């Protein structure tokens, strides 16, 4: 069956969400029966999911690259001279290829499930039209980003998802913590976005100044196979520019994907509704950074320096975030830190040179992490608190939720046969395969292995605290109950995906979306020991969690002085937030003081000085109008004298001096 006829309609996916945004945003208030437009958004996202999955299946059956220029923004013809002798074209279009088809499936499926889940989860909130409209706008932007066929268009949608993230983190805008978290997320990602924009400029410079020499000019400024070697050849032996461009793209990806050192915003972004955390801050938007790196490594190419930086940041972030997850008391924050950690894995995979392996982990992670968030959301919805130490024994009353969280946790911990096992093992073995050629990767490989243990530990610490034991530690807590079908259906669907998604690459058609990320690395005999080791580490983490927190026990905080100071260091998030606050307070405040001084005394001073000068002058002029005839007579005579002097003395002198 050939489904490629559907590719030209790919642009309809974002457009459906734009429609949903307009309808819900304008008329949501009057659609009371339809959950203030919620059901409208569900229907639209359902349609978009259908289309997205069809496109994905079409791409599986006929893998290839389909581009479609929708709009030419700027076209400079080649004239052989000037700044752009080869000419250039800036366009907006859609690109359907294995990478974008995979992302399209993830975004539309998770988007639909989260929309459906929101119906009950958000039922009691105010501002529902705003919620569904913003969520629709986000999905429109995210799908636009996925289908972008050039860096500039990519960047525009990238900014659009950023601003939607800002809106949705600050959904409870009357809560100071949410408002400031939204601001923080926006500002921190801005640092990365500026780097990304500079990176776009660099790649555009390379494209626009050297186009005709290779394939790029023919393709326009678009993502196309063959650019990567071309870029290398254009620059000859000098790869400095490309290295800098790659590092700048990495900076942009680090901002969006919350990689060290721009990771601080993601845990605070949990102030938004849990649904938003699941969709934007776990499954889709934060993965956009990884998607950018994957796209760039396929179409633009990274230099060895870039790749090492990517490996270093990914590996370190994976471990760093996992240590912070260990001490969290808030169920959502545990999952948030694990998101940062898992994004680190993906970045590590891309950096090791296996973009598809990173994308495979992105794919499985989207399902099991959305599942974990939605399960956590069901718990919060039922008991009304996010504090793990108040919960307990919820497994008896919330069987479905408990099961869903367990599936998500096992997948996260990398226990076979859950989805996370396959993708994580793929990443570990692909990094391992590079150790011979790049000994510098060793420390990050070891950190990634340690992270497996920590992952198993922290996620099961959360599970044991919430679901096991005799009952709630806080007696005042509401008895949990499983949610109704609109919430249960997404949980079960995602549980199913979290169990089976790891096997997808075995299906030959699906495997064509992930060339190179097929199962062999995980099961090749040569590194079977690695698979065994990582599973053992994951199980070890789970058992440690059981020993410390199982059956409703609460482990005491560490007592030794070293351990205690370590605990406090981690609990204070390594003082990164304080450091950034200090930089913000001291540095930015000093800048603001200078700006204020300039404003007060230089700018306002000038304005006021001019005003005073004219006021003084006009006061003098006013005094001249005395009303006495004799004064006026004096002025007349004085004027006459001046005229006479000018005419009879100055003018002849000028004429004689310049020989007129």
């Amino acid at each position: 069956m050939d489904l490629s006829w559907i590719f030209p309609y790919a642009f309809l996916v974002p457009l459906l969400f734009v429609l949903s945004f307009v309808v819900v945003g304008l008329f949501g208030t009057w659609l009371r029966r339809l959950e203030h437009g919620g059901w409208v958004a569900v229907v639209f996202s359902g349609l978009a999911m259908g289309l997205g999955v069809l496109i994905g299946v079409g791409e599986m059956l006929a893998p290839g690259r389909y581009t479609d220029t929708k709009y030419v923004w700027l076209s400079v013809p080649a004239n052989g001279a000037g700044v752009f002798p080869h000419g250039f074209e800036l366009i907006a279009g859609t690109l359907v290829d294995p990478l974008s088809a995979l992302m399209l499936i993830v975004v539309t499926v998770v988007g639909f499930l989260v929309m459906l889940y929101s119906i009950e989860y958000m039922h009691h909130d105010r501002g529902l039209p705003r919620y569904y409209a913003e969520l629709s706008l986000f999905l429109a932007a995210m799908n636009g980003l996925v289908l972008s066929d050039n860096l500039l268009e990519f960047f525009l949608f990238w900014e659009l998802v950023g601003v939607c993230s800002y809106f949705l983190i600050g959904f409870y805008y009357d809560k100071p913590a949410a408002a400031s978290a939204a601001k923080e997320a926006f500002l921190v990602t801005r640092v990365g976005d500026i780097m990304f924009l500079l990176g776009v400029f660099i790649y555009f410079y390379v494209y626009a100044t050297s186009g005709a020499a290779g394939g790029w000019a023919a393709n326009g400024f678009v993502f196309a196979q063959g650019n990567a070697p071309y870029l290398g050849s254009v620059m000859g032996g000098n790869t400095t520019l490309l290295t800098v461009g790659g590092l700048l793209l990495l900076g942009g990806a680090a901002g969006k994907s919350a990689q060290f050192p721009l990771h601080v915003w993601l845990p605070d972004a949990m102030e938004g509704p849990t649904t938003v955390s699941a969709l934007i801050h776990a499954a889709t938007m934060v993965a956009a950074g990884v998607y950018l790196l994957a796209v760039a490594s396929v179409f633009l190419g990274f230099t060895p320096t870039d790749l090492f930086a990517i490996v270093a940041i990914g590996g370190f972030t994976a471990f760093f975030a996992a240590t912070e997850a260990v001490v969290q008391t808030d169920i959502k924050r545990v999952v948030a830190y694990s998101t940062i950690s898992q994004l680190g894995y993906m970045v590590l995979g891309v950096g090791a040179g296996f973009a598809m392996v990173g994308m495979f982990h992105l794919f499985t992670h989207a399902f099991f992490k959305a599942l974990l968030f939605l399960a956590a959301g069901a718990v919060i919805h039922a008991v009304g608190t996010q504090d793990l130490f108040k919960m307990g024994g919820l497994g008896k009353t919330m069987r479905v939720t408990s099961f869903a969280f367990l599936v998500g946790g096992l997948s996260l911990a990398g226990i076979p046969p859950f989805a996370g096992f396959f993708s994580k093992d793929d990443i570990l073995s692909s990094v391992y395969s590079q150790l011979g050629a790049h000994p510098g990767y060793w420390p990050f490989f070891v950190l990634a292995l340690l992270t497996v243990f920590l992952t198993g530990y922290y996620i099961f610490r959360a599970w044991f605290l919430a679901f096991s034991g005799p009952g709630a530690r806080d007696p005042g807590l509401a008895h949990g109950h499983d949610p109704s079908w609109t919430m249960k259906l997404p949980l079960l669907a995602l549980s199913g995906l979290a169990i089976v998604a790891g096997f997808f690459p075995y299906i030959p058609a699906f495997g064509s979306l992930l060339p190179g990320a097929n199962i062999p690395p995980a099961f090749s005999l040569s590194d079977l020991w690695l698979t065994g080791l990582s599973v053992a580490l994951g199980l070890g983490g789970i058992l440690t969690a059981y020993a410390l927190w199982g059956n409703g026990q609460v482990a005491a905080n560490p007592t030794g002085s070293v351990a205690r100071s370590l605990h406090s260091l981690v609990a204070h998030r390594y003082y990164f937030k304080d450091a950034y606050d200090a930089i913000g307070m001291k540095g930015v405040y000093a800048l603001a003081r200078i700006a204020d001084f300039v404003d007060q005394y230089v700018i306002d001073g000038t304005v006021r000085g001019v005003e005073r000068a004219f006021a003084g002058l006009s006061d003098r002029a006013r005094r001249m109008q005395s009303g006495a005839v004799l004064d006026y007579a004096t002025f007349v005579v004085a004027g006459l004298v001046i005229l006479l002097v000018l005419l009879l003395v100055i003018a002849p002198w000028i004429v004689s001096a310049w020989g007129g």
Partner: protein
Amino acid sequence: MTDAFTTAGFLGLSAALLGIGLFGILTRRNFILLLISIEIAINSAVLNFVYFAAFAPTATVALAGQSAAVVIVGLAATEVAVGLAIVLALNRIRGSINVAEATRLRL
């Protein structure tokens, strides 16, 4: 022209009259004396017109200079008529014709 009338003498007379008139305008406080001073200054100009008309190359040009003198004399008479009307009004309202005190018309 006769020798008694030299150009320098006439111009000097005219300039002296203008000077006397201006001096009077600047120093007199009495409105009537002020008007007289203005008349003197105006007449210095009339004198110039008449004098230079005598040197005119044609009768038409001479006539033009003399006509100008007559027009200015008429103008001066008009000015004095208006001025004296103001003097009378000023005297009736303020009981004084000191121009330095008449400042009520200013803004």
